[in-house]
């Protein structure tokens, strides 16, 4: 079930859009992006950053509430940042998205233990840690499926929870990648400072 691609459910009043941005891997870039969203009053639903297969390029997945702002306008604003290499709104194209959650639930009774096991069978989720008091459930799926599981776990008793935020990728050959090669002159310096701490 995990590899199935589902279309996320979108309601009128809460339209979400997903943007993917390739940015230069430099200190301070995340701050520039956060500052832009704050200044332009765009609401971030979730934002994730991670390295890519090119060490000098990081990739961000940004989910925005687009009832307030047109995602293309947000993309145009992101592109204006000098350190942003490429931006796409991918929620308008077929794509795969994943949100990972770790949910600690009470398993201090046979009923609760059975209930959690049963839920993990129905959802693309699994128990990754278990003891007499609590268990940790892991799920990596589309955001709405993660949310459904959380709702079903809630009555059993959620003790603690953490989520990574959505990461996403367009399907097929619409590859989003950067041709950009790192500047040849860049070299690590003796005192350990970055090329420039922008």
């Amino acid at each position, binding site marked *: 079930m995990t590899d199935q691609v589902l279309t996320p459910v979108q309601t009128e009043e809460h339209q979400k859009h997903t943007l993917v941005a390739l940015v*230069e891997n430099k200190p301070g870039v995340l*701050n520039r992006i956060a500052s832009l969203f704050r200044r332009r009053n765009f609401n971030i639903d979730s934002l994730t950053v991670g390295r890519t297969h090119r060490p000098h390029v990081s990739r961000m997945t940004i989910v925005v509430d687009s009832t307030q702002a047109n995602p293309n306008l947000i993309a*145009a604003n992101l592109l204006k*940042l000098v350190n942003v290499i490429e931006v796409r709104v991918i929620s308008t194209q077929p794509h795969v998205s994943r949100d990972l959650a770790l949910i600690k639930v009470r398993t201090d009774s046979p009923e609760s233990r059975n209930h959690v096991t049963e839920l993990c069978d129905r959802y693309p989720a699994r128990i990754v840690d278990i003891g007499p008091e609590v268990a940790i459930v892991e799920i990596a799926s589309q955001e709405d499926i993660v949310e459904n599981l959380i709702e079903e776990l809630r009555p059993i008793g959620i003790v603690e929870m953490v989520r990574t935020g959505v990461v996403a990728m367009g399907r097929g050959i619409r590859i989003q990648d950067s041709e950009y090669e790192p*500047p040849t002159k860049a070299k690590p*310096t003796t*005192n350990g400072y970055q090329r420039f701490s*922008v």
Partner: protein
Amino acid sequence: MELTGAEIIMECLLREGVEVMFGYPGGAILPTYDAMTRYPQIHHVLVRHEQGASHMADGYARATGRVGVAIATSGPGATNLVTGLATAMMDSSPIVAITGQVARGAIGSDAFQETDVTGVTLPVTKHNYLVSDVEELAYVIQEAFYIARTGRPGPVLVDVPKDVQNEKIEFVYPENGIRLPGYRPAEQAAEDQVAAAIEMIKHAQRPIILAGHGIMMGRATNELRELSEKAGIPVALTLLGKGAMPENHPMVLGMMGMHGAAACNYAIQESDLLIALGMRFDDRVTGNLKTYAPGAHKIHIDIDPSEINKNVKVDLGISGDVRTVLAQLLPRVEVQQHPDWIARIRDWQEDADERDILHHNTGEHLLGAQVINDLWRFTNGEAITVTDVGQHQMLEAQYYPHQRPATMITSGGLGTMGFGLPAAIGAKFGRPNEEVWAIVGDGGFQMTMAEMATAAQENVDVNIAILNNGFLGMVRQWQEFFYEERYHATPMFNPDFCKLSEAFGIPAMRVTHRNQIEESVAFARSVKGPALVEYAIEKEDIVYPMVPAGADLHNMIRRPKPGEVIQK
């Protein structure tokens, strides 16, 4: 060649063609100040407050189209630049600011005069850098100038720790040091966009062009004029668009917006096609967005894609360099005329003429409008005027028509009081052969009047016209209209401006009657170096027309015709 970081900064400035920089020294930037002694080709102007330095760099940039340079020390020196950076950011003016920072090892320790300057200036710069490796310095400065002047121009700040300025390296100037993978300065129009624009222009009956600052920054004045003449389209200017097309051209209707020409605003509201060129639909230009140009199709051409559909939803948005896009359009635009439309506009213009204060009998009173219009007359409409912010600024926009690009310099987007005098000094450094007038109010002048000392020290030949109404005039006008004449915190006790000026060694003259204006211009021109004229104008004058903030653009408060009662 072995150079210190400070010398590398100077070397790079030289390569960028910098001839003058405006700044103020302090501990963290001292190595660079010392290096300046070895680079006498670059003239350093000592300001009296770093805000003055950033406005001077801005005035220089706007007058020349080249990058202006400001330099300051860490902490308070850098924070004093902020108003000037924000001003330049709002009006897309290319400046590079260089600031000293505490040594790398001290960053983050709340060291003496440490401020997170890249953090503070992040939202008011196009880009900024903290240089933490001397090897990077030359690349960063090259990029800073490139970013500042290309695409939609803007301010760039480079923060350089003191130990980076002191570090010595073997230096080779990187001939092509720009490494900006994500930076795309400008695009072209796509073929279908060009075709759509041509089609819309062809079918329009009541078209109007809205020309902004982008026309001048993009050097598209000839293309604008050609479009207007070929397709018979009248042109409305934004405040910063003044000079985009000669204002004595019959197709130019003057300024649009809150204090714009009534004919312009009516024409916008009744048009069936708006062609917005290098402007950004500021709220001071549109009034109420819900009722803005309701019957018009809208074409928006701007270099900044994020401006398209930001304030006004358009039918055709083209993000690209305005000159390139206009050059794509022009050969395919059909020759047209819109005599009925132009006749309708002429009616509005005639009505406005009747209301014009210059055609009223105002007795003994000396009015701001008269001062500005006479300054225009006696300077043959050829001066570079640099204004401050307030009533006098709007009067200059209304009563000083400009024929050439980049001859009207003003803080539009941010509306920064205190801009006028320092920006005029900067403009004069950039265009030394032009006559430069700073036109300022008594309020704004006092915000940066310390720069009188800079003007005197450098013997800069600027003429300062203070329109002294004893009030924060524009705020008083709002109080009169919208706060039942409660003039709180707007009457001003003022110094004797002429004596003050003389204390700086700047010759001064006071004008109280209209018949002295010609003499005052002759006086200011006769002084080699700065001169000041104080015009004691009517205290409670009003700038008409006025679109109250947020009101519909056509709902202007108009000046009554002679004999009519004032409508408020």
